[in-house]
């Protein structure tokens, strides 16, 4: 019982679209998929002609598809963008070194320049070394904070105007759910924004052209286009709590496939009470990166690593920022609390 494509009504459909329930054949799917990303780029005014755009490339399915589609659209619609690939080497043996090989192949396949920045050269620490010191429990905090800044630093070296990342609809919806579960109203309000305007000195505007694209369609697009991507889970285990939100989202999708975009709609339309305290963005007094505290998260984490007190950046120790800035030693009691023993 082959199902006909609902668009060309001629060929056999190869997938059922989760967002709308339509069935499409391979060619109509490619066309609709690319066209939708184009509409997103145009309607949200993500880019301007002549800009240099860095694509955050991890070698995974999302960023590989993003790089491919942006290249296609840049030519088809003559965006006039200068595209390049931007990768971060976290220094995870057996994971990132393999996925970077994929990125290097992509560089040749798509003929896009590639820049790799490593944690080691930026911070003097690889993730392997960090895990050795902090253990497996909070390492994702280090990695996440460092990656965000590493991408910015790499982008600045290349004089990039904008960074785009492969976050897809599932990622955005998951983040909405996460922020509800964590009661984080400030992030709940921000997390559905498709782009962050330049938030201050040290940060480059970021956007998510795949914000409305389902993970299912990204995987199928990559599969049918035979794109070369890397699919292995990070060896330093993902976060358990986020895992709960992801499982819940996937279950929601299986009950009602539109649920993912429905969650995004919810996130986009909810409004926050006035008078709810929102953090004020400033800049880090050590490195100049955006921060709502005297020191940015990255500098605090780094200070913790260098002083052998990894807990410094985990949890709230804002009152210690003054001491760190003044390079004063901490008291014994403070030190004891920040050592890794009870991780």
């Amino acid at each position, binding site marked *: *019982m*082959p*199902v006909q494509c609902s668009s060309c009504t001629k060929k*056999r*459909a*190869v*997938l*059922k679209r989760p967002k709308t329930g339509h*069935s499409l054949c391979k060619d109509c799917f490619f066309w609709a998929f690319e066209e939708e990303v184009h509409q997103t780029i145009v309607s949200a005014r993500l880019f301007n002609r002549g800009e240099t755009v860095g694509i955050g490339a*991890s*070698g*995974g*399915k*999302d*960023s590989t598809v993003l790089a491919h589609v942006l290249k296609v659209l840049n030519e088809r619609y003559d965006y006039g963008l200068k595209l390049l690939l931007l990768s971060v080497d976290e220094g995870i043996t057996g994971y990132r070194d393999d*996925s970077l090989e994929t990125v290097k192949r992509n560089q040749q396949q798509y003929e896009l320049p590639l820049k790799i920045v490593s944690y080691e050269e930026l911070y003097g620490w690889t993730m392997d070394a960090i895990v050795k010191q902090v253990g497996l429990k909070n390492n994702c905090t280090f990695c996440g904070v460092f990656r965000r800044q590493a991408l910015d630093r790499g982008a600045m070296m290349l004089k990039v105007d904008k960074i785009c990342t*492969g*976050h897809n609809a*599932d*990622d955005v919806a998951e983040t909405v759910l996460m922020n509800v579960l964590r009661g984080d109203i400030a992030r709940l309000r921000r997390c559905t924004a498709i782009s962050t305007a330049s938030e201050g000195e040290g940060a480059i505007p970021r956007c998510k052209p795949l914000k409305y694209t389902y*993970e*299912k369609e*990204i*995987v*199928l697009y990559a*599969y*049918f286009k035979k794109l070369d*991507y*890397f*699919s*292995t*889970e*990070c060896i330093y285990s*993902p976060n358990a709590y986020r895992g709960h939100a*992801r*499982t819940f989202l*996937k*279950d929601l*999708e*299986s009950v009602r496939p539109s649920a993912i975009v429905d969650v995004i709609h919810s996130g986009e339309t909810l409004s926050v009470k006035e008078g709810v305290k929102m953090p004020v963005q400033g800049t880090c007094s050590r490195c100049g990166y955006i921060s709502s505290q005297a020191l940015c998260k990255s500098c605090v984490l780094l200070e913790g690593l260098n002083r052998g007190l990894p807990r410094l950046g985990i949890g709230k120790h804002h009152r210690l920022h003054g001491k760190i800035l003044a390079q004063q030693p901490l008291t014994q009691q403070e030190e004891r609390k920040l050592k890794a023993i009870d991780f």
Partner: protein
Amino acid sequence: MAAPIALHLEFGGGAELLFDGVKNHHVTLPSQSEPWDMRQLLAWIRGNMLKERPELFVQGESVRPGILVLINDADWELMGELEYQLQDQDNIIFISTLHGG
């Protein structure tokens, strides 16, 4: 009595890790009284092929949400999902969407 059928199973997107890292499998389902369907295939995979943590692949009688299934290169949602009756030489692909970005 239905004759034994040969299938090509492919696991990708990380799902292969649950099968000793092997992506392609050629299997033959034994003959049985009724024709084989996807529901029975999943039970058979669980019983005969899954090396570890079956809950990461099957849940209830279906696949875990987030694993895409293609039957002869088409979305199984178009083919009747669990009810699909397998034919000899069918090509069944399981792609995990769950890791890596």
